């Protein structure tokens, strides 16, 4: 790391900490606390229990999971999860089954949002990308294998 950017970073972090302590930066709404237990889980099952409280899922063809069959660069794998065909979608989670920590991201939807997410994720090797949709209290699953030709974690 360059000295200049390092100094900048330290200063910025220091200032933020002071501001938070003084109660200056109050978010408009209280953000949900980051679920460190689920995100540091080493297996798909543990990650699911951590975030949804259950790891039993049912396959659903209503989830449209769009992922490339072959990803030339695993560090930027475009993933789209379209669950707009399902009613009462509460949240969507995306997992990479063989990543060191499988849970990649989790989205919670208010009634003002539709069950749709498109993003780009890192995949360390060839693996299954799993999309979990929580709708009406049930966990629905869609899975697709993505072949990675170059590793995504820069290892």
């Amino acid at each position, binding site marked *: 790391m360059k000295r200049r950017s390092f100094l900048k970073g330290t200063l910025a972090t220091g200032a933020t900490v002071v501001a938070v302590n003084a109660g200056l930066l109050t978010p408009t709404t209280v953000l949900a606390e980051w679920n460190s237990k689920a995100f540091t889980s080493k297996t798909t099952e543990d990650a699911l229990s951590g975030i949804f409280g259950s790891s039993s899922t049912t396959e659903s063809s209503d989830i449209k999971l769009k992922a490339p069959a072959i990803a030339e660069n695993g560090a930027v794998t475009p993933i789209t999860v379209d669950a707009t065909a399902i009613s009462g979608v509460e949240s969507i989670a995306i997992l990479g089954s063989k990543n060191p920590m499988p849970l990649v991201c989790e*989205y919670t939807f208010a009634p003002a*949002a539709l069950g749709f*997410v498109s993003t780009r994720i890192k995949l360390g090797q060839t693996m299954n990308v799993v999309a979990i949709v929580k709708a009406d209290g049930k966990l629905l699953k869609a899975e697709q294998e993505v072949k990675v030709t170059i590793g995504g974690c820069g*290892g």
Partner: protein
Amino acid sequence: MSIKIRMRGKSKAGVAEVKALIKHPMESGLRMDKKTGKPYPAKFIETVEIAVNGETAVNAQWSGAVSANPYVSVKVKANSGDEVSIAVVDNTGAKGSSTLKLK
């Protein structure tokens, strides 16, 4: 240093697809520095909030496995003229936000 975010969105028949491109390294904390053999310190966005006219529509939690300079797109119920905003916080406490008036 606040996190820079670029947003785009267009409303069509009451539904808007909101796209955001966030400038962030998304360092997972697992990548090794080959010279020193030590991992690069983790720095990634943990929480993302997307709101329509100030009301939360989508709350997201991310791990370090979201790609660097993350792209995210969601669909919300909003009409043209509505204000859509996005706010992010990373694990070091750095924040960023952006607001867009829908066309």
